[in-house]
């Protein structure tokens, strides 16, 4: 990694005649920040993977067998060449499970049967963006001889399949909820800062009141109010939205205090002197000064809800069967305790997806913040 020097002296007026728009400048700036753009690229990749999850996954979300037990099946090694015949070709071996009565570990031994890996083969049906299909990127076509790329979980379902299916929920559920709470926080904070007086007073008192709500209780209460037949994903989403409705307090407070500072700036007075309307002063002058703060806040809040969802799963009110999120998968790992780490480390993979996504979002947000702020450009 090379350190880029950052000149502190004022930039001399450049000679290019055409001025770039703020967005173009920011974009160029963002692209130059390699860490941030890498984070951004990975985020996009994750979302693409989530959309095409049913196609990329070799198996259906909830497929397992009650006769050929694959509980905590270890990842199956991929072989390229048959050592006996010397023939080339990708294949996996079929494994049989036994419980070792002295170590109490599940053991998988190859049965000698070979299952060639095939590409673009038909399998479980699914819908992607409303289009039905049954093609899968890879697989063996034999339900008793699956490819467990990342092993299997407690019921013997393919963890690779479940992890990428889970990304659909983990990557989307939080975003809207964050947007809602940010929007409310922004509007409330701005109103308080601009009008001050009784508006400020009422908003502040309101924040104090809602800060007293015991969130956990509220969530449990709300969860129980939904009819049992309701779609659990819809319920989860509504819960997060309601959380958003009551969690804008801190943001509003910070925005208020920041804006109170901005309000005293000469450029706001100047706009006033030009006869700007109050709305114009708010949206054209005061709020844009919050961009950098908001982007950083958003970039912290979106992964924050990914973490929040996993926390809810820890309490049993997150995504529930038959749906999965990274949080529910990680919660299964947590339930397994130390054994999850020593005996079946592949169960940690969903956890690292959470970690990785959160990290990418952070780097992205960091880069965007630097890029949007004219004073921090390289």
């Amino acid at each position, binding site marked *: 990694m090379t350190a880029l020097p950052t000149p502190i002296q004022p930039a001399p007026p450049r000679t290019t005649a055409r001025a770039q728009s703020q967005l173009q400048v920011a974009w160029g700036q963002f692209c130059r920040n390699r860490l941030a753009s890498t984070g951004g690229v990975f985020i996009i990749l994750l979302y693409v993977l989530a959309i095409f999850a049913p196609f990329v996954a070799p198996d259906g979300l909830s497929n397992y067998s*009650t006769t050929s037990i694959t509980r905590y099946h270890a990842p199956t090694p991929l072989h390229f060449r048959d050592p006996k015949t010397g023939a080339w070709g990708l294949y996996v071996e079929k494994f049989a499970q036994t*419980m070792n009565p002295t170590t*109490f570990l599940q053991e998988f031994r190859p049965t000698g049967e070979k299952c060639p890996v095939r590409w673009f083969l038909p399998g479980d049906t699914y819908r992607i963006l409303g289009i039905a299909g049954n093609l899968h990127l890879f697989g063996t076509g034999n339900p008793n001889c699956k490819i467990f790329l990342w092993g299997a979980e407690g019921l013997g379902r393919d963890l690779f399949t479940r992890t990428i299916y889970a990304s659909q929920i983990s990557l989307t559920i939080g975003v809207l909820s964050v947007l809602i709470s940010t929007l409310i926080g922004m509007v409330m904070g701005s109103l308080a800062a601009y009008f001050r007086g009784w508006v400020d007073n009422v908003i502040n008192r309101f924040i104090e009141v809602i800060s007293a709500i015991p969130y956990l209780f509220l969530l*449990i209460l709300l969860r129980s109010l939904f009819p049992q037949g309701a779609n*659990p994903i819809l319920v989860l989403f509504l819960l997060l939205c309601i959380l958003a409705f009551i969690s804008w307090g801190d943001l509003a407070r910070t925005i208020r205090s920041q804006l109170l500072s901005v309000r005293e700036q000469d450029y706001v007075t100047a706009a006033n002197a030009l006869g700007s309307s109050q709305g114009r002063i708010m949206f054209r002058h005061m709020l844009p000064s919050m961009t950098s703060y908001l982007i950083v806040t958003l970039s912290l809040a979106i992964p924050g809800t990914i973490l929040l969802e996993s926390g809810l799963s820890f309490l*049993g009110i997150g995504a*529930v069967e038959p749906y999965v999120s990274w949080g529910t998968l990680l919660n299964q790992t947590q339930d397994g*305790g*130390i054994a999850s780490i020593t005996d079946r480390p592949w169960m940690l993979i969903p956890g690292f997806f959470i970690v990785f996504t959160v990290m990418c979002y952070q780097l992205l947000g960091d880069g965007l913040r630097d890029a949007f702020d004219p004073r921090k450009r390289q």
Partner: protein
Amino acid sequence: MKTKPMKYMLTLAAALTLGGSFAAPFVYPAKWSADPASAAKKGGDYRESTISDYKTINPFTSAEARSIPNYFMSLGTGLFTQDQTNDSFIPHMAESMPEISNSGKRFVVKIRQGMKFSDGQPITADDWITTYKIHTDDKVGSNAYDSFFINDKPITVKKLGEYTLQFDFPQQSATAFVTMNYTPWPDHVFGKAYTAGGAEAVKKLWGLNVDPATVVTAGAFTLQSYSAGQRAVLKRNPNFGEWNKDSAGVALPYLDTVTLKIVKDLNASLASYLAGELDVYGPRNADDLAQITKANTAGTLKSTLIPNVSPAASSQWITFNWNKADSPFKQKLFRDVRFRRAMSMVANREAMVQLALGGLGVPTYYSVYPVFKKYISDSAPKYPYNLDGASKLLAQMGFTKKGSDGILVNAQGQKLEFTMATNSGNTTREQLGRIFADEAKKIGVKVNFTPIDFNVLVGQLTAKGESRPFDAILLGLSGGDNIWPYGANVVPCGTNLHSYNNPTNGKCATAQEQLMTKLFYQGDSTVDQAERQKIGLQLLNTEASLQPVIFLVGGSYHVAYNNRLGGQAPRDQMDSYYGSRGIETTYIK
């Protein structure tokens, strides 16, 4: 106020007349321990963990079974004790077995003389009387309240002499010895408070911030210290050893202290055990067994692991709601015995044991826990996994066709679909439900399985009325004894946990239920064990053929302890009911 001086005078008199010649102490039988008494050493600290904080030291407000007052400070108390080799009762704080009269309803018990509380005060009949009075005061809210009533009729306890008690039962009771076995608490502490300030004064005593010096027990241990949310330390009651000896005549208990550590969950508890910080741990599953085996093999831990000691004393089951006035179709369905038998055939118990219990468990078919072998007969009807059989039964009920979605429909076009709930956060139950739902799907039965909040679930389960709010619930029960292993609020119609049928008037819906209710009360009032077992088997048969509740699987009970411990029970006496050791006879090598 009157009783107090009297008691002191009498104590003095007793001491004068009897001198040092007390009645013989109670000797813990050598056969209860795997190690010879001569191997035992005195002293040391025994370390155990608990996953929920202790709530109080007060025995009258304490609710949990393994709480400090109800378990650890009560160790070695009770008029009688159950001999784990043959389940029979032998006298402990009583001098001898009681005189029984009034056709088995009156028990006159002579109390062993010379017993002292930890503060040196003698233990006399007054202590039992006071304890009884406080437990039965509904303003105290004691958890033992119910045990002093049979069918709402009270059991009375009378003092016949300083060392003689008389128990009068309203009817014969199989569990009379269990009832009489309550721990006496000092009259000079609780009796005094109760006379002065009533129930409120009793409730105020012995909270968690009590001065340990003021805590007085009759049992083997008394409180040394409690630090909030961290640990409680118990110390030996020096007076206990005067009337409790091992077979070599050494005063019990051997241990100096018992340290009870509070941890948040069993994973933390396992980690502590693996690090050698705990002396015992109850392995839950194959994972725990594997971890302990690994540490033992690697030599990082020196401990003994006994897997599959016995089936666990608990059950997992699915109940169907017979009170669905709002949906006549479902009500008819759930009340049809063929449907319930078919559902039992859908339950793939082998797969459940393999997948949800990691291979360590047994299929169950009856409400009696498999550990109570005396009350189980293999001749009772069973409906094991058989998808074809299930399909046939459903076809008999008119479900012959499958719709386009693969779900069975009858001639009226009604779909065979229901909702099943369990409490969220219990992985094993969630897996059991998943397997059940997935198997059902194979024969065209759609089960919408959802884990919901525990309290909501219990609310639905115990709801009363013609239209109760659930279709099916998957849940488990634990508790109960090996004397009469049927629950008083489970079997009889109209009780709280008669979960499948609980209408407003509490009436039975079937003749079998009526018979079961009758048999329950009959068994409950039968003192003779063999006779009781016979009634029990009849009840088992009736229940199994009615299949009101479908039993699934039972886990296994495993024992693990650090090798520095000695004095555990012989292997053949260990089970999930009696446990693996008496702490009184446990020692540190």
